[in-house]
């Protein structure tokens, strides 16, 4: 039950993007196409999961004074792994995410969860937390990038769904479009959340 709650937490109540509003740099930068959003979400989830497992396992061995550098070192190791892995097996994705993969190191979502959760909780709960947070991050990224790709290019996951009559709104795939659509989505989510409370 507790594990389920740890997992569910990231999906909605403490959703990293909608509720905690952290990890926005990749959120805004790579969500111009759905495939990029999905790849970034999965890559971040993997790093989050792997580093939460390692850190909650060895948390007692790390002196308090160097915990942040230690966390970053561990996170950076997994990020470098993901970077090489994508380049070797998914070169097309690696090219389109380019330097945002190394930048996962400084995604505050990952460091934040180590500090707030993995360093205080046992391994099995950290796994549940990482899966929940990772999925919570991924679904928002995918939703946001579908909206932007659809409005900006008339396509979803690279398939043209809107016909020639549709005049693409170029702004949606530029950085400004990321802010606009994220703002509107956060607004909608807050509205839904508030309605839920009133009931």
């Amino acid at each position, binding site marked *: 039950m507790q594990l389920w709650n740890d997992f569910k937490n990231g999906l909605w109540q403490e959703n990293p993007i909608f509720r905690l509003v952290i990890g926005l740099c990749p959120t805004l930068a790579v969500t111009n196409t759905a495939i990029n959003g999905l790849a970034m979400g999965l890559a971040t989830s993997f790093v989050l999961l792997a580093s939460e497992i390692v850190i909650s396992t060895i948390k007692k061995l790390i002196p308090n004074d*160097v915990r942040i550098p230690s966390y970053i070192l561990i996170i950076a190791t997994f990020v470098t792994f993901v970077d*090489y892995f994508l380049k070797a097996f998914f070169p097309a994705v690696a090219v389109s995410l380019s330097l945002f993969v190394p930048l996962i190191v400084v995604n505050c979502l990952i460091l934040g969860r180590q500090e707030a959760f993995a360093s205080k909780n046992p391994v099995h709960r950290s796994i549940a937390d990482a899966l929940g947070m990772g999925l919570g991050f991924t679904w928002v990224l995918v939703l946001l990038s579908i909206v932007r790709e659809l409005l900006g290019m008339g396509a979803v996951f690279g398939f043209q769904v809107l016909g020639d009559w549709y005049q693409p709104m170029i702004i949606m795939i*530029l950085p400004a479009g990321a802010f606009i659509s994220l703002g509107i989505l956060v607004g909608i989510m807050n509205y839904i959340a508030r309605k839920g409370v009133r009931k």
Partner: protein
Amino acid sequence: MRKLLITLTVLGLISAFALAFVYQWTMPKILQHQEVGKKDAILTVLPESEQYQEVRKGDLTFYEGNKNGEVAMVASGGGFQGQIEVMIGFNPAAGKVYSIKVLNHQETPGLGAYITGGKFESNFVDKPFGEYKVVKRPVKSAHEVEAIAGATISSEKVAEIVEKAIKEIREVYGGEI
């Protein structure tokens, strides 16, 4: 104090070991992708050739196509943030650039990164040799190149790289401006 040093040293060592294995495992595959990418790029910038031959002349490597005296080469230079590497196809006899394809770059995503992906590269399709002028409007003459909005420096750097390559290709293969 000692404990801090030991913790970080041990973590650093484990991390370095792990990454060394990952590097050895993935690097051959990454290099292979780059090789395939290079081959595709050569055949893209040479419109009619289906095969090419690698030719070394002095310090430079050229890829000679099997038709029309088409020649391709890789040129690189500093961009806005890092090295830009461009594959360029030439027809020295006709004194023109067939087309270019950016192979590697580290330009800003969403701005300078648009040097790849066709639109900017199409500036150099069938471009006569010469000095290029980067302009912030649609081109009016054959020696103008339309800059990417918000990325004038990246645009100028690519034009400079092409100019430099033209110089090198003319030294070896001739060709009039």
